[in-house]
């Protein structure tokens, strides 16, 4: 099938950040550590004696300092406010201890202290900073949550939980730690929020297939926290193991995310995972490709499982440069961290992965264009690419009319959901806020956006009439009211393209909705098109624009009808007599003039007690005229 290719689009949909953060490469005398909570790379030269350099993606998080070498470092991390540095060292003969150094403006003070884990024989697997001045030791015996009091140089135990664990995984965005017990068969998440430890629903895995540490990640995706597990082909059929799947199991999150999502990679080998703009990126080393999965796409759950395939066929990331040179991609020395960090320790580079939205539309089968637009509607920077896609579809409407209308449907269905939610929020107030369904409105394209950014620029296109029809049809399918921008555009397109008949048919069937500007536009067409004028009057009357109706009727030399309309609208007592009589005289119908003259005199009589016209009403010439014509008779 013919493929759609967005003009000037990138063939890659993922890229590394343009300028990698450089640091000293890993070497026998230099150790490199990465803290994904703060996004900082620590390069420790000679155990810190010749210097520790801290590099963050932002300059404000970078610093360097010196410290004593007191033994090999296992882990080194700043607290979230960068005021306390915690260091875990490898001491075979000592108790599980973590050292602390207070910092001031990213420079070390000489205030140093340490704390030992409460379990005597425990081994500290690692530590994490759930919040400022709170640290949690993850040990093979359980979790100990402590409060750090830097001024007093001591730590206070807040809470602890025992759990026998082999390794753990930490998500700094949601402060959830996942402990692997029972040899990787049982995964137990804990939440470290609110200065306490909360045990969450455990994740039961297949007993025959324990998972290993490198296959488990905790991800923050779509405002929920997930446990991602790589499920490699079944070991029973070693000869031909099936392709690897990624299982996403919800840990916590807004209601609505209770399905397990299964991502079908169709590949085997070494994988790594990132999250970019709520898309799951699965990097595959041997094929040098990265697949994208969107768990928000529409699909039907089966047995509480939703199955996903890549949004687009896997493509590699855009080749990155370090300095002038292309750097090797998907190299063995890459380490991938959550959510979107990639480190090449040998080159000494820290990148973030970013999405190139236009790359998604680089090569799309014709019938998947709408799907890609749906994916883009859920991306932060999707709007611009959507505009470009729609532009191109409109230009090539001869080929893509069906797809165009599907794309409109996607855009409008998102808008519809948003509008419904707004209405619910406004009417139900706070209650609705809490029960928010998991819809994320990254891109909202209103009617004026679509008209202003796209459709108006296609005034000379061959298929404008068809495009505008498809657009309004899509609005109708989503039960959206055609707003002024779209209405005006439709009228202009249909009139200038010689499709006035279609316009009339549309109006007769109420497709465009009533609006005063629309009625006025139709009135101005009235001298060419009697049908338009007829419909304009209907519309004005429905809109209760009674004064306008009276004016129109007067201008059309229908004074009796104008008087009738004024009477029906209750505007009869205010109707200026001069206007009415002038119209009656201009119409040339003597009986009409006489009748209206009498009616106005009767009105004067009732309003003022005298049939005569006021001086200010300037009706003298008509009084004369009346006398003249009645005398003739």
């Amino acid at each position, binding site marked *: 099938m013919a493929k759609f290719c967005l003009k000037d689009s990138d063939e890659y949909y993922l890229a590394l950040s343009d300028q990698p953060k450089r640091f000293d490469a890993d070497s026998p005398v230099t150790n490199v550590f990465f803290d994904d909570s703060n996004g900082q790379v620590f390069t420790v030269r000679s155990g810190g004696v010749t210097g520790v350099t801290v590099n963050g993606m932002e300059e404000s998080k970078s610093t360097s300092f010196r410290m004593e070498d007191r033994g090999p470092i296992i882990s080194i991390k700043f607290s979230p406010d960068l005021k306390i540095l915690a260091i875990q060292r490898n001491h075979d003969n000592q108790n599980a201890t973590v050292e602390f150094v207070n910092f001031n403006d990213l420079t070390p003070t000489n205030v140093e202290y340490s704390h030992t884990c409460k379990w005597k024989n425990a081994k500290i697997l690692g530590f994490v900073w759930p919040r400022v001045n709170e640290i949690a030791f993850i040990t093979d015996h359980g979790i100990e949550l402590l409060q750090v009091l830097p001024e007093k140089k001591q730590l206070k135990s807040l809470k602890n939980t025992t759990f026998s664990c082999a390794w753990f995984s930490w998500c700094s965005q949601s402060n959830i730690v996942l402990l692997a017990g029972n040899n990787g068969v049982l995964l137990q998440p804990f939440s470290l929020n609110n200065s306490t430890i909360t045990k969450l629903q455990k994740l039961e895995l297949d007993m025959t297939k324990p998972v290993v540490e490198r296959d488990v990640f905790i991800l923050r995706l779509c405002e929920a926290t997930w446990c991602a597990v790589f499920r490699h082909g079944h070991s029973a059929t070693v000869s031909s193991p099936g392709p690897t799947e990624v299982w996403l199991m919800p840990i916590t999150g807004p209601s609505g995310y209770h399905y397990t999502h299964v991502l079908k990679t169709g590949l085997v080998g070494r994988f790594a995972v990132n999250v970019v703009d709520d898309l799951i990126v699965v990097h595959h080393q041997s094929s040098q490709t990265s697949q994208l999965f969107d768990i928000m796409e529409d699909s039907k759950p089966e047995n509480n499982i939703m199955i996903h395939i890549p949004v687009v066929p896997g493509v590699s990331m855009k080749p990155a440069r370090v300095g002038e040179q292309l750097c090797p991609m998907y190299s063995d020395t890459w380490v991938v961290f959550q959510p979107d960090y990639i480190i090449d320790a040998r080159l000494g580079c820290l990148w973030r992965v970013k999405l190139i939205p236009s790359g998604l539309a680089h090569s799309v089968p014709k019938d998947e264009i709408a799907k890609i637009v749906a994916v883009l509607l859920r991306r932060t920077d999707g709007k611009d690419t959507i505009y470009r896609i729609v532009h191109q579809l409109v230009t090539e409407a001869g080929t893509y009319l069906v797809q165009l209308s599907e794309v409109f449907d996607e855009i409008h269905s998102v808008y519809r959901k948003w509008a419904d939610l707004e209405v619910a929020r406004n009417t139900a107030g706070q209650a609705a806020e809490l029960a928010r369904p998991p819809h994320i409105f990254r891109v909202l394209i209103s009617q004026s956006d679509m008209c202003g950014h796209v459709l108006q620029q296609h005034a000379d296109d061959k*298929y404008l009439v*068809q495009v505008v*029809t498809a657009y309004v049809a899509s609005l109708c*399918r989503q039960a959206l009211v055609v707003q002024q921008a779209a209405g005006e555009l439709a009228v202009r397109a249909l009139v200038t393209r010689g499709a006035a*008949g279609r316009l009339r048919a549309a109006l007769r069937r109420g497709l465009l909705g009533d609006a005063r500007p629309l009625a006025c536009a139709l009135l101005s067409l009235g001298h060419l098109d009697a*049908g338009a004028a*007829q419909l304009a009057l*209907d519309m004005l009357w429905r809109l209760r624009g009674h004064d306008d109706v009276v004016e129109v009727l007067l201008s059309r030399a229908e004074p009796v009808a104008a008087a009738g309309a004024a009477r029906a609208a209750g505007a009869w007592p205010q109707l200026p007599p001069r206007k009415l009589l002038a119209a009656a005289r201009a119409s040339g119908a003597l009986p009409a003039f006489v009748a209206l003259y009498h009616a106005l005199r009767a009105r004067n009589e009732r309003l003022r007690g005298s049939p005569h016209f006021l001086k200010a009403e300037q009706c003298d010439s008509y009084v004369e005229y009346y006398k003249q014509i009645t005398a003739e008779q």
Partner: protein
Amino acid sequence: MIDVKTKIYSFFIFNSSFGPREGEELQRILFYHPSQTSADTQKMQVGLCEAVVKFMSTFSSEPCEALQTQSKRYIFYQPEKGYWMVLVVRIPYTTKALSAIGESRGDVVDPSVMYDLLKSAYKMFRMFRGLFKDFPIEEIYSVCDQFFTPYISSRNLSNDISDVIQGINYLPLDKNSFFKVLCFIDLLEVNYPHFKCISFIYNEQLIWNGLATHDMLTLYQYLVQTLLPKQVAKEIQGGAVAAAQRHGRFIHPPEGIHNKEDLQKLVKVHVMREDDSETKQYYLVIYRTLSATICFTVDVTDELEFEMFRSLDAFIGPQLSSIASTISEQCSIHALQTAQLAASEHKFVYFNRLNLAFKTSPPPNKLHLSTTIKPEVLSIIASIHADKKNLGNYGEIIIKTPDEYWITGKASNDREFYVIIQEKNANLKEIADEVRRICEAQMKGIFFYPM
């Protein structure tokens, strides 16, 4: 109201310039119905009309319209200069006193209906054959004979309001179904640029029109009066065949398009498309699935290929049948809703002069209507309708018949609205109020100039 077989005395077309000399009178007669009429009678009838028309021209620049004798009424119509179409009907006559004649007034054919009959006959001729003057003299006799003989004998004017006011029945449809139709047409025209959709009809109701209004009326009448009844009869007869043809077929040419030779049978029409400014010649192609009928024009200059039609058939068939079923669902929903609405106890007729939309209170079922609207009432409506000058663009007229029928005619903004009320003890004000009430209830959203 007019029964062709018994009431029409004769129908003929003549052009005096074709046989200017004495003895050539028969050449002036392009067509004469009934054909078995003796040559002498034909000559006499035509000669009378020629004389009257000629005589009248001395008094008025307007062409003569009618002649009434004691036993016959002649209606003249000159569609093209020199070509006269004449319809002669018998009128009941009696030597009794005039008051007694009033009793049988219902049998008198209203002149406006006769005139409309002539006009639609000509318009049909013009659409399918072209102008009289474009035919060479040698051909015109046979052309007229081939066209008008079947036409006049198939005309079955009954006592029906739809013959008094010639309009188009539009199908009320919800927005989304209408858009479905419209987008389908767009898609079709984009994919098959040779084909231009000129009408979409469901059952006998129009959904989409792509012709200038007056050509649309003619085509609509052709479809509803001639082509579709035959098709429906065929479908009912061949039950199993019809089921096999579920995915639709070309019905014009009537045998369908099955091979290259069938393309020769395509009929040419002279029509003006909507938003066009001139009448052009096109091939007329009609396709039908379930109850949906769709008409196309193809430019006569376009090269026709059989492959094109086969691919079109494959494209339309499935889509049209799905659309037809959607519409049929909508129609049944609509029918339910209207059934639930309190039916108006009074009859009304609505007509829009601009798009020729025509609507009546009960479903336009001919059998049903003929028993409910009395010929006298119909005749009054016919004369209000014909007398546009009197009612004009804005006005209302209320007429009471001796047998307690109140007939109200309203005109406003190029629309007409008639209400028939049978009420013995009513006064004018009550009737006017009732009419206003019916108008507001039935014609929601339509602005009638208030009185």
